[in-house]
């Protein structure tokens, strides 16, 4: 029973979603809307699960004083600060008064009853604490980590981009042309020195676009077809119960 019921639910719902894609009948369209609504609700629960997991994993590391535990502590403190600033910032912000006089009176009564504007907490202008933390702590930290990539990519390119044989040489040539094509300065020099003087030589931008539109797209399409067919095969295997990823963790 523990195996059959989930299998039946998955198969029936899966088939129904496939049928509604091709047959937009009334009942099926409504069913699709309900299923998608549940999808969003489950997505929200996954978010809560993620938060609980984040706190639990890091708290265990702090408690056991395992390697690099101070980072885990900083993660928890950071989470709590942002949560308080965004989630409860609305308690400290005066609700916005509506323009009309009657509306203002009604709003004042409402404010007296419940003096909390949740939305104001994550409005960067109305809650400068949240805005400051987001713009001057979170954004620079995240951007800095990503910016380091430029340095590591340069170092990796120096070591990896070597024309060891013909295919590697072709890849290197294409990469260099695309990189030059994406660099406005190189395109400008190329056009000034070559394209503008000799008619048959295309601009660097045109060569780059040709590489991206033809060889690149052809290869990508092959990959996409492969991925699509594999996904279709996987979906059929799940629908007929040959694979049951939704039963992970149970003995099959």
């Amino acid at each position: 029973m523990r195996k059959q019921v989930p299998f039946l639910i998955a198969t029936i719902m899966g088939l129904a979603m496939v049928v509604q894609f091709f047959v937009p009948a009334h009942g099926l369209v409504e069913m699709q809307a309900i299923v998608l609504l549940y999808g969003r609700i489950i997505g929200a629960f996954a978010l809560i699960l993620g938060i609980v997991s984040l706190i639990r994993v890091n708290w265990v590391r702090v408690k056991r004083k395992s390697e690099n535990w101070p980072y885990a502590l900083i993660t928890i403190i950071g989470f709590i600060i942002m949560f308080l600033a965004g989630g409860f910032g609305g308690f400290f912000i005066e609700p916005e008064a509506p323009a009309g006089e009657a509306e203002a009176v009604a709003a004042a009564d409402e404010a007296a009853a419940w003096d909390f504007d949740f939305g104001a907490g994550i409005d960067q202008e109305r809650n400068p604490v949240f805005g400051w933390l987001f713009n001057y702590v979170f954004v620079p930290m995240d951007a800095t980590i990503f910016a380091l990539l430029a340095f590591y990519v340069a170092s990796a390119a120096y070591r990896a981009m070597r024309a060891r044989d013909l295919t590697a040489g072709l890849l290197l040539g294409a990469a260099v042309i695309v990189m030059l094509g994406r660099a406005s300065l190189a395109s400008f020099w190329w056009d000034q020195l070559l394209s503008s003087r000799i008619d048959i030589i295309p601009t660097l931008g045109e060569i780059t676009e040709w590489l991206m539109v033809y060889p690149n797209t052809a290869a990508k399409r092959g990959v996409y077809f492969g991925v699509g067919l594999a996904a279709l095969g996987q979906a059929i295997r799940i629908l007929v119960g040959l694979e049951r990823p939704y039963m992970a963790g149970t003995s099959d």
Partner: protein
Amino acid sequence: MAKQQTKQQGDIWSSLLRIDRRIIFVFIFVALVVPFLIPSLTVPVEVQRPAQDLFDAVAALPEGSEVIVSFDYGPSTIPELSPMAIALARHCFSRDIRIYATAFYMEGPAIGEALLRQVAEEYGKEEHVDFVNLGFKPGGPPAVIMGLASSVSQVFPTDKNNTPLEDIPAMQYFQKLTDIELCISLSASTYPEAWAGYAWARVGVPCGGGVTAVMAADFYAFLDTGQLVGCLMGMKGAAEYEQLLVDNEIDLDAHGDATRAMPPQSMAHLVIIVFVAIGNVAMYMSGRTGSRAGGKRRKSGGR
């Protein structure tokens, strides 16, 4: 003597192959920083077809129409994607096109909020009248996009800052996804593909994109089939859109962060290419000198 000279040359090439990564870092740092210190250093931007197509798609919209701009990125890709969002917002606001911002990244709404308010101020536009920030919704693209196709208020009962949709004047023009003329996803991931897969394929709303340079190669197939009407590819794509705004006299001050970032980006690319060339020459030369020395050794060993 000749053998020693060959060995020395081989050592030089071999040491070049093992160059300390910190030396490369210094060169990249200088290439990135110096052009920023010379504001007069500018480079002309050649507009490519994908950017031109997206510009044409926005330009072809009737004044007063509605577009979705989805902020599907986080702070790490702000330098690449926010200039695109600013340029697109300028184009839309200059033509009285209303913007409805959504996000599949949790950080997206906060990024979009600051940015849209800044551009709206330039054009004298008002939040809730000329643009609405609907915020982030979990559940993934199929649930959210197809939910929007049924009813916006079902997916987003309030905007990002908890204002009920019925109190937002601009929402009278956007009840369902079919009210939208164009969806543009700015993404550091494959979200434009998801918009094309659901908003265009299922609902019939044209879609465009703006992606980071590393993702660009993935989207040419979608442009070729018309699933995306146009796409901005990396920071150069943003610079191209800024150039288009200036060339078409939509905003003569549109040259912004992306255009300013072109000289440093160009210099960094050139530095990488020079290092790649050095690496390949060093590999070739060290192989030659190595085989020459090795050949002699084998010969003498044979004797």
